[in-house]
């Protein structure tokens, strides 16, 4: 790198060309007062505080002036002072200077500047005209406070929201001395487009944006965010065995210093009073007693029926009871539902427990509900999925399952299908927006509008459930117009000719009729995808949660194979929704696969595993999540071990699941909190949270990340692996003598090291289009689909008060025209009726929802009461994305009708 020499305050300095004077000075510990400069943002030169004098006598803003060879810079002097002092004095005059009571004291940039410049605060307030009235403080956000009276209008928050958060919720408003930072319409920040990510709060140089009740941590512990599959690196700030602050890991390639609201403000659940702290066992009481033990249940709003209660028990007693009962239900009478939020170590021990101790392959996780089609399609195609111990990106074929998230920025084209990434995986959404800023061309396939649609070059809106036809239409364009990579398909594809023929079925005319997407739009999109190298595809439940989910994924893989994009590791990115959904699958929490997708049905593999684990294994593949429920209902499965999940709520149809749980003879429930499923349990075991144990997680990119322990487990809770290892020992099983999570990881690596490698050639999949299983007719004329709220993510966010405040209430969005048909007005409570059930919720009219579609949020997973899903024949994933429904008015209210006319026009911002 080229170096430049310059002199600042008589000190000779060498720095890189292109650096600014301010950067160079700060790097060399020379302080130049500054307010609007922030290292993460583009310099604005707005505050005029960072002025310096050049040898020519010229006074310039140091934040905007690049260094030049031989430059001589003075950062102080009488000339400079004459210019700079009044600037600062005027800022101070307009600033609420009650520093002693300010939450920012000691870290305030203005305080530092006034001290450095020896500004006489009292003198200014006598000489200069002060602002007359105090502006009201905006405390609408539960996590931070905005105080305009302390704002210096440096614009750092405006630029952060624009450049980093990419939301632009705030901007300068007004003029002259009435200027202030305001959201649209000067609304309260919680009522604006703000996503509460807090990026502006941590960058505000003064006390205008401050966290509520800031506490200074004594030490920071490296960890990984427990919410979505992105797996952002975080540092937990700990003081007195409490997490008082969370900071993004700037060194992490996953989130490069960014966090969303969940990571930054959603960790408080760890200290929730509702945490399970003691093991509990169910008792049938003659008289009502033991109210204390019931408290966690009551706090969770759960009633246990009749005379059934839980009482606190010792670990000794609880585990004794579990061991004694499990001995009765070995082999196929036992099923284990593992957690997609536990560590790899926990999940490894869980599946080993089920297979080795209980002799059962009935192991599954909630990943079955949306991720299994990805695994099935990848395996059938010949692409690796799975655990990669080393993190290097080989670049060779076939591409590794994981990739370096930094690469997204280099993508030439990004295709997002069936996912609202800005809500479900906010930090990944930022990366995609970043790469669009860097020139990537964005294509979005989504029936209803989401955040990324607005910046997409092409937004394709197929009717919900017709995605396969649309994607195959794109494949057909690529084949027909010779846009495919013939060298690649010739070398690496087994069946190109067969595929070419079948793709011909998807002529653009036919695809347009099926999907409702204009043929030109499909052709242009296909061309953009084929031309963008490397092109990345991201997809979520809008692709997988269909009765033909695996085929949908195949269609996307076909795109990547045809264009040879599959050789790039970022080509195919199924999104995992929980922090370790991919890890749970990699660890073998699947009925048909051992660790790393080694098939259970393969005799050689089984024998290998038997020798590694030194035991006899059940040779038959087990049942999937929904099949386990069916088997429990049919009383073939009698004992269930449910870890960190809530099938009673998350698996459809809810009623059937609850009936099945009621029938089970013995249920062990193990989690941090009581939930709907727990009320069917016979024994409840308290598990440690992510912050209270060591371990590794695998994020949606396939990257393995380690967490350190920050806290002691709450109360008497224990890490999941420790509970199951102890139980295995009690049941006289060998191979569970783990002293720490590290011991387990060593065993995992040793097992993986012994597995055969599997690499093949790619296979294109000729596909047929069939409509989704649940289609509309005259009785059920519209399609219901669901979307996720930014602030709602399982029981964890539920236990954080601020998240509960910010989330949207239950609603169903409906197009005003459809609403007219059903005679529904805005804000009205309506009944949604499907072929399988009915629920009530509030209707909201919005023009952004297309006609024919109604969109519900997943609040409390109410949608599961409406479904009776058909399963994907290949992956067993239920079709839960869509459901044909009709809406019914419940009662008529004139007042509401009037209001609706106004707000229908208002829509949602």
């Amino acid at each position, binding site marked *: 790198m080229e170096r430049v020499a310059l002199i600042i305050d008589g000190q000779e300095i060498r720095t890189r060309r292109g650096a600014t004077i301010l950067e160079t000075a700060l790097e060399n510990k020379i302080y130049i007062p500054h307010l609007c400069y922030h290292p993460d943002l583009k310099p604005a030169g707005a505050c005029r505080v960072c002025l310096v004098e050049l040898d020519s006598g010229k006074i310039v803003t140091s934040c905007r002036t690049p260094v030049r060879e031989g430059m001589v810079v003075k950062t102080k002097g009488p000339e400079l002072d004459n210019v700079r002092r009044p600037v600062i004095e005027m800022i101070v005059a307009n600033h609420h200077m009650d520093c002693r009571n300010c939450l920012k004291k000691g870290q305030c940039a203005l305080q530092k500047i006034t001290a450095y410049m020896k500004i006489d605060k009292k003198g200014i307030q006598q000489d200069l005209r002060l602002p007359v009235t105090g502006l009201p403080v905006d405390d609408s956000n539960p996590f931070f406070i905005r105080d305009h009276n302390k704002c210096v209008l440096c614009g750092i928050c405006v630029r952060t929201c624009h450049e980093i958060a990419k939301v632009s*919720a705030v901007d300068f*408003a007004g003029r002259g001395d009435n200027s202030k930072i*305001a959201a*649209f*319409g*000067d609304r309260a920040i919680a009522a604006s*487009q703000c996503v509460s990510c807090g990026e502006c709060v941590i960058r505000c140089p003064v006390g205008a944006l401050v966290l509520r009740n800031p506490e200074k941590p004594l030490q920071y512990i490296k960890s990984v965010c427990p919410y979505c599959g992105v797996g952002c690196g975080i540092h937990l700030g700990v003081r007195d065995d409490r997490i008082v602050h969370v900071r993004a890991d700037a060194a992490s390639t996953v989130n490069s210093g960014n966090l969303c609201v969940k990571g930054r403000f959603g960790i408080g659940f760890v200290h929730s009073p509702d945490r399970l702290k003691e093991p509990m066992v169910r008792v049938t009481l003659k008289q009502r007693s033991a109210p204390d033990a019931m408290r966690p249940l009551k706090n969770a709003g759960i009633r246990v029926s009749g005379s059934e209660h839980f009482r606190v028990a010792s670990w000794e007693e609880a585990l004794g009871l579990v061991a004694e009962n499990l001995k009765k239900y070995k082999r196929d009478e036992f099923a284990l539902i593992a957690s997609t939020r536990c560590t790899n170590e926990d999940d490894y021990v869980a599946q080993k427990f089920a297979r080795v101790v209980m002799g059962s392959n009935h192991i599954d996780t909630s990943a079955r509900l949306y991720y299994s089609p990805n695994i099935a399609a990848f395996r059938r195609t010949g692409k690796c999925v799975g655990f990669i111990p080393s993190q290097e990106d080989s670049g060779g074929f076939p591409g590794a399952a994981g990739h370096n998230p930094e690469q997204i920025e280099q993508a030439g084209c990004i295709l997002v299908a069936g996912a609202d990434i800005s809500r479900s995986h906010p930090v990944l959404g930022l990366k995609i927006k970043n790469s669009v800023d860097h020139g990537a061309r964005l294509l979005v396939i989504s029936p209803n509008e989401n955040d990324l649609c607005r910046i997409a070059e092409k937004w394709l809106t197929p009717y919900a459930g017709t995605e396969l036809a649309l994607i195959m239409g794109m494949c057909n364009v690529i084949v027909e117009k010779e846009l495919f990579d013939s060298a690649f398909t010739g070398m690496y594809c087994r069946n190109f000719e067969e595929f070419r023929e079948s793709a011909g079925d998807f002529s653009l005319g036919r695809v347009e009729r099926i999907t409702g997407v204009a043929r030109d739009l499909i052709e242009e999109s296909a061309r953009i995808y084929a031309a963008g190298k490397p092109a990345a595809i991201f997809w979520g439940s809008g692709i997988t949660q269909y009765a033909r989910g695996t085929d949908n994924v195949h269609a996307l893989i076909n795109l990547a194979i045809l264009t040879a994009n599959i050789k790039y590791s970022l080509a195919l990115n199924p999104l995992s929704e929980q922090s370790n959904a991919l890890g749970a699958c990699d660890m073998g929490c699947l009925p048909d696969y051992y660790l790393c997708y080694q098939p259970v049905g393969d005799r050689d593999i089984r024998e290998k595993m038997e020798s590694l684990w030194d035991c006899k294994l059940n040779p038959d593949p087990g049942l999937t999540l929904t099949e386990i429920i069916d088997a429990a209902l049919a009383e073939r499965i009698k004992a269930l071990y449910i870890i960190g999940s809530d099938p009673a709520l998350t698996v459809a149809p809810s009623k059937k699941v609850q009936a099945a749980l009621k029938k089970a003879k013995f249920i062990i429930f193990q989690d941090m909190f009581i939930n709907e499923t727990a009320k069917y349990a016979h024994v409840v075991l308290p598990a440690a949270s992510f912050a209270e144990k060591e371990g590794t997680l695998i994020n949606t990119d396939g990257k393995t990340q380690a967490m350190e322990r920050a806290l002691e487990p709450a109360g008497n809770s224990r890490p999941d692996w420790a509970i199951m290892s102890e139980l295995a020992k009690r049941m006289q099983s060998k191979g569970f003598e783990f002293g720490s999570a590290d011991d387990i990881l060593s065993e995992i690596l040793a097992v993986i090291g012994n597995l055969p490698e599997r690499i093949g050639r790619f296979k294109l999949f000729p596909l047929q289009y069939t409509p989704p299983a649940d289609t509309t007719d005259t009785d059920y004329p519209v399609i219901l689909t669901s979307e996720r709220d930014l602030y709602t993510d399982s029981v964890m966010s539920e236990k954080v008060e601020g998240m509960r405040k910010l989330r949207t209430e239950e609603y169903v969005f409906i197009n005003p025209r459809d609403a007219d048909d059903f005679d529904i007005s805005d804000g009205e409570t309506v009944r949604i009726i499907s072929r399988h059930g009915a629920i009530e919720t509030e209707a909201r009219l919005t023009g952004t929802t297309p006609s024919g579609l109604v969109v519900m949020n997943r609040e409390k997973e109410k949608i599961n009461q409406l479904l009776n899903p058909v399963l994907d024949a290949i992956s067993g994933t239920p079709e839960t994305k869509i459901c044909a429904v009709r809406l019914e008015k419940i009662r008529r209210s004139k007042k509401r009708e009037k209001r609706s006319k106004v707000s229908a026009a*208002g829509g949602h911002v």
Partner: protein
Amino acid sequence: MEEEFVDRILASYKGERNELVPILQEVQENLGYLPEKAMIDIARFLGVPGSHVYSVASFYAQFRTLPLGKTRVAVCRGTACHIRGAPLILHEIEDAIHLKEGETSGDLEYTLETVACIGCCALAPCIKVNMDVAGDMTPEKAKELFKGNGNSNGGNRGE
């Protein structure tokens, strides 16, 4: 109604960022002010954040985000009017229609504003009621002009 207006106006633009001010002007010309919904539609049309549209709309004195009253009363406070008693006239009108300077009555009947000079200093002090100029004002004349119109007490809106 409003929505159709906005849609029609937007249809005559290309959707480029630099059209923001002309669009705001045209919308205000037709609707009398900039309703929030119109600003949201404009933001979507131009592909800019809503906060940016609001920023521009709130910067220029010509834009209003609240509707105007049916009768716009502008009291001149130019030099000539000022020395001939404009402040007294303003007070009188404020009392008569129960509005402070810059406010619009809750029933959208009146908007009271002050201007720097109407341009007819010979008639000072003068006021303008909608498009009509009334000169040689006195507090009595002003009182007479707004007689019986001061009943709108319901929730004045600031501008």
